[in-house]
């Protein structure tokens, strides 16, 4: 499965849920509605900030490929995995 073949609205977490997150520069993330917290690494932080700015999936891919030395196949796979984990944290913490 590639990111190009996936509907953005399906893969991206709920924008309202993303906006409410309190994200610390340390990578600590707190959801004020559910009361749950989780951590993300440096790359996750970049993605999360981009999502909170309403960035599109392609913008995030470009951002990551310019910052990290990674081929597009691995980047898409890791991004997909991260978005899945993030949605899971927000919906079923």
């Amino acid at each position, binding site marked *: 499965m590639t990111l190009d073949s996936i509907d953005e609205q399906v893969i991206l977490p709920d924008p309202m849920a993303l906006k409410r997150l*309190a994200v610390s520069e340390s990578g600590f993330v*707190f959801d004020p*509605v*559910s*009361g*749950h917290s989780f951590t993300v690494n440096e790359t996750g932080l970049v993605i999360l900030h981009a999502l909170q700015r309403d960035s599109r999936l392609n913008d995030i891919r470009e951002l990551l490929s310019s910052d990290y030395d990674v081929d597009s196949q691995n980047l898409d796979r890791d991004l997909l995995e991260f978005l899945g984990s993030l949605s899971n944290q927000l919906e079923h913490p």
Partner: protein
Amino acid sequence: MSAIMVAPNRIAVTGMNARPDNPGPGLAVARCLREAKNYSGKIIGLGYESLDPGLHLPAYCDAGYLLPYPSSGDDAFLERIELIREREQIDSMIPCLDAELPIMTRLAAELEKMGVATFMPTSAQLELRSKDRLDELAGHAGTDAPKTKSVTEAGFFFNCGQQGWHYPFVVKGIFYDAEVVKSAEQGAAAFRRISAQWGLPVLVQEFLEGEEINLTAVGDGKGKMLGAVMMKKLAVTDKGKAWAGISIADERLFDASAALVAATQWKGPLEVEVMRTADGTYQLIEINPRFPAWIYLSAGAGRNLLEVLLQLMRNETPPEMEPAPAGVIYLRYAEDNIVPLADYESVIMHGWRVPVPEPENHKQ
């Protein structure tokens, strides 16, 4: 509406039991009072056992008194309150235990005549939040409620399947206590244990998967909810009581609770317990007609609800308040308190601990 308006200056607070695995709310209420910006009066702790920790903690209670159990009857209760009023000049009381509310509301007029003010739900409101009327309450709140049934005999647990009750489910006391049971034997044992302690009926309730979230606030008696603080448990004791929690900002919980307060014209403190299930539904579990044991979080989050209660008791209008901010954590811990033998002796022999007067030569 109370005929007397008081400026509380000597407040009695009940519920001074504070065992680490299952503390009563009284000590936390006293701590909030100590820190309230609008209160500098005395705090008199009231408990039922000589080793109730709050009776022996001068940092929070200037004096401590034993009460007769509510089952001792109205006369014994009133007689004791009269004695405490004479000795300590108490002018108001904050009940903190579910089992006290029926007797307190029943005797509210007598207490008032005695000069002891309260700000608590009416008997009708208390009846409405009865655990066997959850459906009706949930209707007011716009939430669902777990299926609940009153049970008066242990035989139910052996043929409950015929009535549509399948294990596991929860067995609850009418005032307090709850246990998840997975078989007829466990159910019958829980029934006997809970009914022996809290009386009949015992309730059975559908078991829900999800996470519990709670709200505490004060109803002004005219339909308005004041100073809401919402909390999710982060850690629980063996008895399922919160050991650590974090303030949250859940709009659906807030709206449901505000609707409940408006519909019932709730007067006084309350705690609303809701189960947020995995499929996103909100199930009303219970309403407690008092502050919860985690009430100190309200002070920690900048919404000391005792300040609000005091304003209402003084017939002042509390200012509009946003719900408490999310992300404030409380974490309980147990601490050893050293109790002078004379204090313990006094509680055993007289039923009170009062401050020891300073020696004459120490006075200015």
